[in-house]
């Protein structure tokens, strides 16, 4: 006779180990109260030896880039490997790469906010800061591409008397408007979200100078009901504005290529293809940054495996979108019947650029398929390694868009080749140094996990325990069950 075995009660720890659990019930089981959130997140702000070493390496790479740029200014743009008609090289490739990186930040902070995706809460600050620094890095490249960079303001399309009247139908002018709007709005979004957290730092700070600085930056925030009421509404509207902005900016960047007649560029699929690629690359960079951070800052119980799992699913989805876009490009290249398009594709797949295509397709189409495995999605080591491949793959995606197209246009006189030089590579390395330097400075001055938003998903202290789905006033909650802060 079979024995009836009573099932053991499931603990929070066991639930955490289980995949695909309904996220909210055990969102942050290891976080007890608001005080713990403050103590642990502000505890990451003290500089360590490892941080100084990291900052030193970042500045070293930045100096390499700065030296190469100085040499380029002295010697002329010819040292950057340009070979007419290939007059766009590594700089435009890296510009698009960094703009793309900048997209995941606003996607995570704005779009996922509107969709109420719970996994954004602990990673969005990191992604937002990454956005601002990535767009700052991207903004350097149009200037680096100038022979006389001190004349950079000639690039800004405003009415002037220098015989440079803006052509408002040019995609390059649209691009300036889009990127500057994106930089302004994403910086504003980051700063507004930071205000309550800076108030926490102000109230905990003992150093009078830092306290005064935090006091000014927090704008005298006092956590009143009036402040929160308007803050929540303003944040929602900023998210609502940022959401279409994310989609528009990379669409406009793609117009830089798609509005031309160059074979391989003149295609209507570019806007969605660029947007999906940008989100994909941005999530890759989020993994590259957040996985070491959660480990070395001791924040594994904030940025949980569930959060990374959910973000990995998003990376998988966007990799499938870009994969379909690549296949669509192959098909259209063949189906167009245009000899120029066919030659472009032959060059790209089997010609002199095959190696770059192989890297691109391996990194962006093949390796991300591993994320179908739940086991690998929850393996942080694999996620981090994969994120490096994603970064490499996405840089090569932009390389393979720009170089084969420019080096093989319609007429034989337009056929050339392109080899980046040490100056290109040094400035590329310098851009990573510049980005890393700002990010490292940020994470030791301001909280890399949003304190006030994490508190929202921590159970508040209560005198009386309440049933699930009933708030402390005794009313049934008007929204979904997984709203954090409930009691069993």
């Amino acid at each position, binding site marked *: 006779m079979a024995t009836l075995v009573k099932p053991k009660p499931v603990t929070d720890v066991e639930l955490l180990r289980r995949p695909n659990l309904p996220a909210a019930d055990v969102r942050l089981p290891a976080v007890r109260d608001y005080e713990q959130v403050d103590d642990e997140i502000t505890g990451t702000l003290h500089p360590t030896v490892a941080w100084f070493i990291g900052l030193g390496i970042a500045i070293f790479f930045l100096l390499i880039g700065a030296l190469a740029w100085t040499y380029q200014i002295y010697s002329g743009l010819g040292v950057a490997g340009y070979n007419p008609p290939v007059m766009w090289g590594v700089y435009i490739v890296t510009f698009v790469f960094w703009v793309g990186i900048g997209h995941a930040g606003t996607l995570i902070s704005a779009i996922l906010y509107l969709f109420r995706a719970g996994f954004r809460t602990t990673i969005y600050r990191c992604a937002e800061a990454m956005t601002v620094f990535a767009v700052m890095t991207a903004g350097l490249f149009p200037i680096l591409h100038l022979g006389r960079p001190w004349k950079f303001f000639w690039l800004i399309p405003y009415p002037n008397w220098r015989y440079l009247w803006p*052509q*408002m139908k040019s995609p390059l002018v649209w691009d300036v408007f889009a990127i500057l709007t994106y930089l302004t709005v994403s910086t504003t979004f980051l700063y507004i979200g930071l205000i309550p957290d800076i108030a926490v730092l102000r109230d905990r700070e003992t150093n009078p100078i830092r306290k005064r600085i935090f006091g000014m930056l927090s704008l005298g925030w006092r956590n009143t009901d009036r402040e929160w009421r308007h803050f929540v509404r303003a944040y929602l509207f*900023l998210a609502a504005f940022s959401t279409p902005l994310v989609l*528009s900016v990379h669409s406009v960047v793609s117009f830089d290529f798609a509005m031309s007649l160059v074979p391989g560029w003149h295609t209507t699929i570019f806007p969605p293809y660029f947007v999906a690629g940008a989100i994909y690359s941005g999530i890759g960079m989020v993994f590259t940054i957040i996985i070491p951070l959660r480990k070395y800052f001791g924040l594994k119980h904030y940025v949980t495996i569930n959060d990374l799992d959910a973000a990995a699913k998003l990376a998988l989805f966007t990799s499938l979108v870009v994969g379909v876009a690549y296949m669509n490009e192959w098909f259209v290249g063949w189906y167009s019947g245009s000899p120029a398009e066919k030659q472009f594709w032959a060059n790209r797949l089997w010609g002199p650029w095959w190696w770059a295509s192989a890297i691109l397709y391996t990194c962006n189409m093949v390796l991300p398929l591993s994320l179908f495995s739940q086991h690998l999605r929850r393996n942080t080591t694999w996620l981090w390694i994969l994120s490096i491949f994603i970064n490499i793959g996405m840089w090569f995606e932009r390389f393979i868009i720009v170089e084969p197209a420019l080096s093989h246009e319609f007429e034989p006189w337009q056929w050339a080749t392109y080899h980046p030089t040490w100056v290109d590579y040094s400035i590329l390395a310098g851009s990573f140094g510049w980005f890393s330097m700002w990010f490292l400075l940020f994470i030791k001055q301001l909280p890399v996990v949003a304190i006030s*938003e994490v508190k929202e998903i921590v159970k*508040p202290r209560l005198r009386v325990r309440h049933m699930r789905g009933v708030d402390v006033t005794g009313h049934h909650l008007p929204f979904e069950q997984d709203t954090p802060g409930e009691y069993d």
Partner: protein
Amino acid sequence: MRGVIGMFRELDATIEAISALKERPIGEFTVYTPTPRHEIEHAIDAAPSAVRRFTLIGGLAGVTFGYWIAIWISDYWPLVVGGKPIASWVPYTIFGFEVMVLIGSLATVAGLFANARIPKITMTVGYDRRFSHGDFGIWVEPSPDRIQEAEQLLRKAGAVEVRVER
């Protein structure tokens, strides 16, 4: 300005105090909370935020300016390309959209500042650093003869500390 400040460790105690203050209006009150809580918002039952008006006006002004600046630049010094119209609304929608987002976002921030009354130069009375840490608080501004009543109300609701400030 003279008032009574009560500090609460628990959210439900804070809600109880707010409900009591709504039932028995002793004076204007302000609630402090380390993070926005929908329970507090329901208990206070304040009017909807006016930030949305700033957003709407900013967005409309932005889209108008975006289209206008593109059309004005094109008309002031026409650069004719390929027989296309000098001012073409289809590509200029990009300017309209981008400037709408830019001005709309900045107007939203202005709306936040105006309505939340920040930046504040001084911290004034009625604030405690624990309110950004983990505690809830209520600041009541009663008439001088009702200060004691306010203190009693806050204590009865569960305030762990009550003090008069001026």
